[in-house]
């Protein structure tokens, strides 16, 4: 299958190889949460709700030096192309929950909120490739919305390598093509990679190209997220008034 | 743990010695029984009497009723005192595996639903349930009670699988013995439905009223009842100090030091002896005595089962 048109250089959905899908972030989508956000990357659409920092619910997990960060990832039954009824806590969601938690924990200043708990609930509405990236981006927005102090803006993006071309931000079709794909998460300001997942062999030089592409994607997303946050902050402040 | 709050009533009068005690005395006996169960129990044993006033070598009242469950192909209800078992068999069709193309099979499962005991809660099965499942399945196979070839329908194409499910409705000791009797009784009661093969190769039942009318070939016209060859019966004996108590109740099981379960077939041959760990070593002499007791019990159970069969036939004909 041709994932990149050899003549025009365009991908199946009409993007250039180094082009992100349409991204959209929206704050405050869940009424009762401390912070919440919707994030879309093309057709991939996730909601994150953050509860806390609040009293630790299970006292045995309380840490007197830092906040306890928890994450639960769930997929809506209708989130994938073929409808599947999934059990909660299957292996895949446990794994993604862990990845999101660890990635966000690297940025949250947990030592400022000792003996408290922060819950990050991730709900995938539509999965069309790059779900874990979308979840991380949404979680960053939601945590910022909840006013939880963070070291940096964490963003994530994928890149792959198909038809001898490095491709940014794979959609489901490209993702399931079986080529190598890299999920990268970065702390944007510090320019540090905090998450790197790859599941295929790739020569070193190509790998570097693909990873660099993903990092560029992360940075573009970080800029967007910063804008969303700043715009929201200005809006809140000007509404609040003197 | 397994003190049955209610079963107590009758035992006390005989045991307490006083007999004529009023409510206050009864309370005292009850308190003593709860606080010092072993001492209370052993004081009984010295008088050669048990908590429920039985002699040591007497099993509880035993009853068997066949055909309780209409939705099953064979079923039975068995009671040993308060221990109650319902066993039911449902026949389904399977393609036999190549290595035993002319045989059917039997799948046994023993359940302890939460209604049977205060210690069982929904969602978590009792830990003894799978153990008893395994023992039952082993005994059915090793006794040769059922000739699996009798369960064949069409060689290599179709044979019966008999799903035998036993539910313990009330757990008051000697569960394996009662479950085994219910197993035997359910197989005795089993009526194999008349079947034929439909156009698409599936085996389908022929309803009674259509017998003789259907164009499809009948597969098992003369194999409607299962021949049981070596019917196994078992007896569990509790060994406590020098005493042997047959058919222990749950309360006794919680006190008694160890048990021996003996399974005998129709010819009085030992099919299996089962003794879980425990402090007392079962000497050969004791074991022999247990076997003697088991033989007597097996005969008794055989009679009860036969009576239930004829009772059912009477029922049917009337």
């Amino acid at each position, binding site marked *: 299958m041709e994932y990149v048109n050899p003549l025009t250089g365009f991908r199946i959905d009409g993007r250039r190889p180094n082009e992100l899908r349409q991204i959209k972030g929206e704050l*405050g989508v869940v009424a009762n949460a401390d912070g919440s956000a919707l994030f879309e990357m093309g057709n991939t659409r996730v909601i994150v709700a953050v509860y806390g920092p609040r009293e630790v619910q299970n006292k045995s997990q309380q840490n007197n030096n830092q906040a306890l960060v928890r994450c639960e990832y769930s997929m809506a039954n209708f989130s994938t192309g073929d409808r599947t009824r999934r059990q909660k806590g299957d292996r895949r969601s446990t794994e993604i929950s862990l990845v999101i938690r660890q990635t966000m924990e690297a940025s949250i200043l947990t030592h400022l909120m000792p003996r408290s708990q922060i819950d990050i609930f991730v709900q995938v509405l539509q999965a069309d490739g790059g779900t874990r990236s979308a979840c991380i981006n949404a979680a960053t927005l939601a945590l910022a919305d909840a006013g939880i102090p963070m070291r940096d803006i964490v963003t994530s993006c994928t890149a792959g390598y198909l038809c001898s071309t490095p491709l940014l931000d794979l959609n489901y079709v490209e993702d399931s093509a079986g080529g190598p794909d890299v999920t990268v998460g970065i702390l944007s300001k510090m320019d540090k990679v905090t998450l790197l997942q790859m599941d295929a062999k790739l020569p070193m030089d190509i790998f570097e190209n693909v990873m660099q592409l993903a990092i560029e994607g992360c940075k573009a997303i970080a800029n967007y997220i910063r804008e969303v946050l700043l715009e929201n*902050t*200005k*809006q*809140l*402040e000007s*509404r*609040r*008034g003197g | 743990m397994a003190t049955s709050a209610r079963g107590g009533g009758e035992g006390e009068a005989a045991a307490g010695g006083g007999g004529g005690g009023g409510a206050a005395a009864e309370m005292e006996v009850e308190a003593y029984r709860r606080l010092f169960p072993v001492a209370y129990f052993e004081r009984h044993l010295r008088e050669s009497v048990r908590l429920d006033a039985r002699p040591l070598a007497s099993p509880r009242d035993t009853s068997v009723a066949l055909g309780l469950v209409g939705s099953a192909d064979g079923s039975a209800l068995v009671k040993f005192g308060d221990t109650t078992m319902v066993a039911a068999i449902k026949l389904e069709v399977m393609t036999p595996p190549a290595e035993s193309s002319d045989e059917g099979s039997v799948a046994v499962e023993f359940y302890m639903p939460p209604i049977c005991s205060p210690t069982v809660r929904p969602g978590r099965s009792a830990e003894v349930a799978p153990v008893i499942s395994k023992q039952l399945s082993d005994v059915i196979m090793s006794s040769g009670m059922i000739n699996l070839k009798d369960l064949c329908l069409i060689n290599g194409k179709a044979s019966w699988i008999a799903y035998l499910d036993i539910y313990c409705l009330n757990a008051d000791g000697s569960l394996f013995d009662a479950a085994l009797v219910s197993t035997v009784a359910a197989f005795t009661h089993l009526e194999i439905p008349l079947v034929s093969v439909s156009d698409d190769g599936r085996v389908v039942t022929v309803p009674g009223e259509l017998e003789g009318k259907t164009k499809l070939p009948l597969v098992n016209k003369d194999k409607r009842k299962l021949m049981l060859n070596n019917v196994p019966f078992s007896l569990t004996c509790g060994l406590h100090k020098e005493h042997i108590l047959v058919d222990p109740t749950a309360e006794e099981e919680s006190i008694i030091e160890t048990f021996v379960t003996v399974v005998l077939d129709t010819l009085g041959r030992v099919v299996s002896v089962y003794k879980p760990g425990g402090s007392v070593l079962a000497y050969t002499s004791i074991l022999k005595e247990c076997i003697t007791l088991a033989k007597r019990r097996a005969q008794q159970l055989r009679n009860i089962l036969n009576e239930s069969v004829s009772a059912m036939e009477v029922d049917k004909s009337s």
Partner: protein
Amino acid sequence: MRDLQPSLNQTQRVRLQSALRQLHSLPSSSSSSPLSSVAVADPIQVNHDDNILKGHGTLDCDGEVVATLCGVVERVNKLVYVRALRARYKPEVGDIIVGRVIEIAPKRWRLEINFSQVAVLMLSSMNLPDGIQRRRTAVDELNMRSIFEENDVICAEVRGFQHDGSLHLQARSQKYGKLERGQLLTVPAYLVKRRKQHFHHLEQYGVDLIIGCNGFIWVGEHVEAGENVGMLVEDQKKTSTAEEESWSFTPLETRKHICRIANAVRLLSALGFTLTVEAIVDTAEASLASNIEINDMLGAEFFVQTAEREVQRRASMVRKKG
């Protein structure tokens, strides 16, 4: 309060947007300019020679000061900090707060106050019903539930952090204590400004309004300080017949006022306007003046009108100053 998102028609949407744009362009009365808004990880300009003190919401990152929160950069002398907007409540000593009892522990009540931990109200930090100052006895401890029980709404003052890091409250005044016969609203804490007065008796309505610094706002029937309403509700619990209960209900007139004030709070919070007693009363009055039904205060038209009125109010304030 994000639960209120009225569906606006085309005109209303345009009007709202224009109002919000005007709010944005109006010079803020506080010292901070809109330019000083930051998002997470934004650098904060400082002159390093000034020996600045890095406060809340800032972090040193390779010699650069960056924000760890979204908010507004504030500078007080040498202190630079980020004032967060949406966030949980940050307690300060002396804050008046409204909270809910979630647990009764030995010698203390534990309260939910929209902070990262539960707050503690010790039995000893509390005036006893008999009003006598004395040592707390074991009997008092057993009777704690007769003072406050689970789920009770309480008004108290922040006493401070204990050495173990827990937040303590005190309620040693007649004005503090259990709140009954009314409703509790929760708004983002940043919409409440610290002021001298957080208790408001709106005499014209017969309503008490308590604007807790933690964003918990109580609107209820007016009660004279020290009057023991607790007993009233206690009695009702015993006499449970519907008829008897109905006698003790809040009078309809007062209830109307309570609901109107409460909806004013809901509306202002949904618009993200600061919740001062003046703004709340103004909004309620405006709804009365234009004959808006209580529930319609949450509707689209009044939503937009309130935004427009706020523009006028702030514009006139700027004119006065100028």
